[in-house]
């Protein structure tokens, strides 16, 4: 099968700064990829290389099997949703959406129908004669999406598509964006620094740092089985527990913390070298009382409770002396207070070993 996009050993530097260090990857047709990383990690550079705003220093980029070497942006059939949208302020919504159609040689009489179709797709029928500055942030985002999709691009690039919106709108539009992407079925690459956005939009996530792809895979794989400390920390909150592997039995090892707390973890090939365990707060189950302490559970005392709406973050000091944070659903029938005696437990497969 021909890849929708393929990077082969692509390198790019700006002066002294290495933006991309020998990157290779490929995207399947129809797939949605999320490029996730902090600012300066090179994700935007990948986008600008695909769009043709930059040229790679080394390596090749192909789109649909065709080399892009030397092709200008307007010679590639790529759609781009800009961060902050880059809508043309002096044109109406219709003119913005029709701009690509006019310049990609569509017959003039077909343009109004296609523009209307796009307005319908993003639910903005009737807004065609407005100017961008007369629209809300969410509406502008949808116009930008319609403009990028109007010319049937073989590939859609989205640069921080939701970052300019406030939190509530961001959630709504994320779902809507996912629906639109599914409806048009085009290959899409989303660039974002927000891990929630990456996990909800991307079928696969590429986590990037300092010009390198640190890990790629399905959202759950990357979240639950990070291969590096960077990925573990970047994908969400983690508890880090220092210690060593004391025994291994098949797929489960026993880990002993510095304070002497022993618990089962998912085995790793070179177990002896492993000095840290990463466990996400939501994997740490917490129950009141010390009754269930034993082989799986560990007794402790609540130090502090922070309520975050849907969740509660409970800081726990275990009887061993280890400290751990548990994230649990905030329910009216269960409460925790500082000083309360509790028991925690963690499924072994949620505990990932690191060197």
């Amino acid at each position, binding site marked *: 099968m021909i890849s929708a996009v393929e990077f082969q050993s692509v390198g790019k530097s700006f002066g002294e700064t290495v933006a991309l260090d020998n990157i290779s990857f490929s995207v399947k047709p129809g797939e949605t990829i999320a490029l996730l990383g902090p600012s300066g990690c090179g994700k935007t550079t990948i986008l600008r290389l695909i*769009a*043709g*705003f930059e040229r790679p220093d080394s390596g090749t980029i192909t789109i649909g099997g065709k080399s892009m070497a030397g092709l*200008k*942006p*307007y010679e*590639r059939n*790529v*759609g*781009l949703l*800009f961060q*902050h949208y*880059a809508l*043309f*302020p*002096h044109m109406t919504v219709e003119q913005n959406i029709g*701009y*690509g159609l006019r*310049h*990609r*040689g569509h017959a003039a009489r077909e343009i109004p129908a296609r523009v209307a179709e796009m307005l319908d797709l993003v639910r903005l029928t009737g807004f065609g004669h407005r100017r961008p500055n007369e629209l809300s942030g969410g509406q502008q985002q949808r116009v930008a999406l319609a*403009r990028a999709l109007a*010319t049937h691009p073989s590939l859609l690039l989205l640069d921080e598509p939701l970052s300019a919106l406030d939190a509530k709108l961001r959630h709504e539009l994320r779902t809507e964006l996912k629906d639109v992407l599914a409806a048009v079925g085009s290959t899409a690459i989303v660039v974002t620094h927000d891990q929630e956005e990456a996990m909800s939009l991307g079928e696969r996530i590429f986590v990037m740092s300092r010009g390198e792809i640190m890990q790629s895979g399905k959202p759950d794989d990357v979240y639950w089985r990070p291969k590096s400390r960077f990925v573990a920390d970047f994908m969400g909150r983690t508890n880090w527990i220092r210690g060593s592997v004391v025994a291994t039995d098949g797929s489960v090892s026993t880990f002993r913390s510095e304070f002497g707390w022993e618990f089962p973890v998912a085995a790793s090939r070179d177990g002896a070298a492993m000095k840290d365990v990463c466990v996400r707060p939501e994997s740490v189950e917490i129950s009141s009382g010390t009754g269930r302490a034993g082989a799986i559970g560990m007794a402790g005392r609540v130090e502090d409770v922070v309520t975050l709406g849907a969740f509660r973050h409970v800081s726990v000091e275990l009887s061993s002396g280890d400290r751990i944070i548990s994230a649990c659903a905030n329910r009216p029938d269960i409460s925790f207070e500082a000083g309360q005696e509790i028991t925690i437990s963690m499924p072994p497969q949620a505990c990932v070993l690191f060197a």
Partner: protein
Amino acid sequence: MSTHSRTARSGDRVAGALAYGVVGLGLAFLAIPLAITCLMAFDARTFLGPLPPPALSLHWFERLASQADILSSLRTSLVLAVLTTILSVSIGTAAAVGLARGDFPGKGILTSAFLSPLIVPPVVIGFGLLLFLSKAGITNGMARLLLGHVIVTAPYCIRTGLASLLGADRRLTDAAMILGATERQAFWSITIPLMKTGIITGAIFAFAISMDDVSISLFLSDPSATTLPVTLVSNMRAAFDLTIAAAAVILMAVTVVLIVVLDRLVGFDNVVGQGLFRS
């Protein structure tokens, strides 16, 4: 009420009255001479008499229109102002685009150099051009005037052009190109329309400055090409009568038309934002 707050209040009252007084006197000082000029232009008397005119008439305008040198210099001024505007806007807009396109060594120096004619006394520019163009053998009066006027008006167009490009994000031309527009198409369909306010403001300033200039034109005018202000100055020095008031009314009318156009197309608030008046 404590004595402190009482003195504070009276201090406020005095300071406030003083400030309003200055504002009122200032506005009166700006407006009254112009109002007097407009009124006197319609004076029915045939001599320069004290205010107010006993009757109104258009005879000063008729006298103005009967002076051949006024009419020919008005024509020269209009042609010159139009040519100056076209040249300055083209040169200035192009230069602004060039300066705004990325960083390059010498950008700061070049920008200052482009704006430097604004800080050189116009008389020095006029006198310098006179000597240089005589030496260079350029004797055509219109060509000399045009060069002199473009030198002092192009910087305004560069300034307004640059200011309007500040709002024009590079990403907008990127967006146009990814949508299939070539560099050239993106320039004409995105960059130039976005510079509209700057171009119009620059054009109106160029036209007005060219229409009004005396300091440069006085050196470069010759019998074949004399501008209206130059003719008016020599008339003013020859005989101080009210034909000049009539001419002033006409020139003011031209300015008011320009101002109305400016407000309709750009808006005064945007004019102030064009970087023409800054500290």
